[in-house]
């Protein structure tokens, strides 16, 4: 049981959670891509054309994922970006909640992602049950990794293409959401967003790197 990960604790406060639960009722529990029609279009409204920009309010639309789906999302997030020696895991910075916010949004790009993500989460759990007879949380770490690893390369088997497409999109969203946090900035090496008295331009070290590369290119 040492393999069993800690449950994902949502960052969203209880009052908000209750509001979403009240608004969403039963969430999607569909279990295969063929049944993705269950991922109905979200009913919430957007933030409008004139939201407060300096202190943004939380996204106003109701959320979609059940507690179980958030756990599944957390496991996949942390398969993509587990904690490193110097940076936190994706779930530790709340990426599953971001995925929930994203698939619940009423805008076209997010509405298009919604069935892909919801069906994919369901597929992963169906597949864990089929292969190991337990849900993803209770599968061994090795089994979890095996299952998710099967989604990391473009599959020759046509039946695996929808799960691959899901994973690719889920990973893209996870990466985007992770590196737009302060720990993400630090990990990727973004050092801006600080007031400065002047703009000195690139350092001699950076210029030396570029000069070396330009020389290799004959420029």
């Amino acid at each position, binding site marked *: 049981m040492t393999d069993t990960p800690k449950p994902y604790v949502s960052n969203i406060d209880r009052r908000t959670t209750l509001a979403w639960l009240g608004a969403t009722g039963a969430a999607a529990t569909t279990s295969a891509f063929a049944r993705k029609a269950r991922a109905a279009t979200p009913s919430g409204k*957007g*933030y409008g*054309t*004139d939201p407060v*920009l*300096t202190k*943004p309010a*939380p996204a106003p639309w109701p959320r979609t994922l059940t507690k179980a789906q958030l756990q599944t999302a957390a496991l996949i997030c942390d398969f*993509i*970006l*587990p904690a*490193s020696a110097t*940076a936190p895991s994706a779930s530790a910075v709340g990426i599953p909640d*971001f995925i929930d916010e994203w698939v619940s*949004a009423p*805008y*076209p*790009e*997010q509405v298009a992602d919604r069935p892909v993500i919801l069906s994919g989460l369901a597929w992963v759990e169906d597949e864990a049950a089929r292969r190991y007879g337990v849900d993803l949380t209770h599968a061994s770490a090795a089994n979890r990794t095996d299952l*998710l690893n099967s989604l*990391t*390369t*473009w599959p020759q088997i046509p039946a695996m293409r929808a799960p691959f497409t899901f*994973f*690719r999109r889920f*990973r*893209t*969203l996870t*990466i*985007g*959401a992770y*590196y*737009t*946090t*302060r720990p*993400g*900035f630090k*990990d*990727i*090496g*973004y*050092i*801006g*967003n*600080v*007031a*400065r008295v002047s*703009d000195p*331009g*690139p*350092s001699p*070290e*950076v*210029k030396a*790197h*570029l000069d070396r*590369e*330009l020389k290799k*290119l004959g*420029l």
Partner: protein
Amino acid sequence: MANDQYDVVIVGSGAGGGMSAYALTKAGLKVLMLEAGRNYDPLTETPMFNTPDQAPLRGTGTPDKPFGFYDATVDGGWEVPNEPYTVAEGSEPFIWWRPRMLGGRTNHWGRISLRFGPYDFKPKSRDGLGHDWPITYDDLAPWYDKVERLIGVTGRAQGLENTPDSPEGCLLPPPPPRAFEYFVTHGFEAMGIPVAAMHGAVLTQPLNGRAACVFATPCGRGCSIRANFQSTTVLLPPAMDTGNLTIRANALVYQVDLDKAGKAKGVSFVDRVTGEHHSVTARAVVLAAGSGETARILLNSKSALFPDGLGNTHGMVGRYLMDTVGANVVGQFPALEGLPPTNDDGMGMEHIYVPWWNYQRQNRKEMSFPRGYHIEMGGGRGMPSVGMGRMLDGASLSTGDALRDQARRIYGSFISFDGRGEMIPNDDCYCELDPSVKDKWGIPVLRFHWKWSEHETRQAAHMVETFMAVIDKLGGKTVLGAEKDGRKAISKGGEMIHEVGTVRMGASAEDSVVNEFGQSWAVKNLFVTDGAVMVSSPDKNPTLSILALSWRSSDHLAQLARKGDL
């Protein structure tokens, strides 16, 4: 407000209207400014240092906020609720960006501030196409000088053809090129293409009581410390300080009112919040509502004297609508991988650009298209956005430490190349009143007609070819936009948000709507000071020229007012 006596009512508060308000109030005239959008205060509303994770969906663009959550534009966009527009059947696509806020587009604009050159005012004399302006570069040059000294523009004299240098003392020092800009400069120069310092409306030094840039935060969000140019931070505060300016927001003007003698006596507007209709009077009217909206007001100002719209006796209102030609290619460069961390924030836009370099070849008829473009480049190690995950897509998807390494390696290794080119006005691009569609308040809306000509589509193809060549020269790989068919590579009409030319100036009432001072041929106390007056649409972004033209026209208006000649 109704009881006040105004010398001038100005419709619109962006570059054109803001500059008119500045010039006219400084000249001692009492001015009422009507803005269709809401009041807006950049000092308190700008999300300067906010990070994506504080915003819904990490700040990604949505139909509510097309350029991202933190974009300065509020209450506007490609669609404005209750205020539709239409595109004629059979037309190519046209989209229309309308902010609904004090200061208009100057709050979020790109702040690239390039002077038009001498050729740009006399294009027909040079190659037989399009139309000449009634003024020359020399007529406008002193006004460019004044604008640059007032608002603060970076740049450096470089002696390039049709790319005017400013006199000593006009420009602020440009910031040093970013790492990727230093890199890409070598690629262009190896192809014989000169690279120039950007002319950006950002203070690299304090100016006129405004603080210098803090070399952080994206300019498109606006600037709460007033270090970049916005009408709301640079033009309207000093105009207010004269005590001569009154601003009314949410006032959607739809008509210029005439007196019995056929002179303008004021305007009528609907309050967008209450729905009530109002009329105000003034000795003169200035329209600066943006090229589309200015034309719409004139077309909707119908009377016995002007049954087809004010000043439209010769069918010129709405004609010769132009936008900028755009095409985009993105390259990825192994040479930029693994660059040590470097801070690429700073003056928000590019620190360098490539002015058009083929004037002589075009002069010799060696090219398949007659007019030029300049190149803007985006890249570097800016604040990560949620879209960055796409850079790591592929047939094999890394995870864990391998993914972190890959992300660190490729971060900052992409460069986006954007061509911005001149469009030649043509008979297929215009706007008119839609015969049946009206806005929420019953006012007829605009119907757009659009068709790029081969002059533009061939230019777009050349942009793509050039970008792919420089990417290749720098050992990179084209990852987006490798579309060599110019008809497919070209931007949509209106997409560059540089629509100009619906109320053009000219030498006679037969082939233009206003004279060289934006003064209506038909109604002498009616002026137009926005981009609608432009006769051509050079590759240089229009805002600096709108400011210079507006100042020149407003100064003329003030002189006439002093002489009692309105």
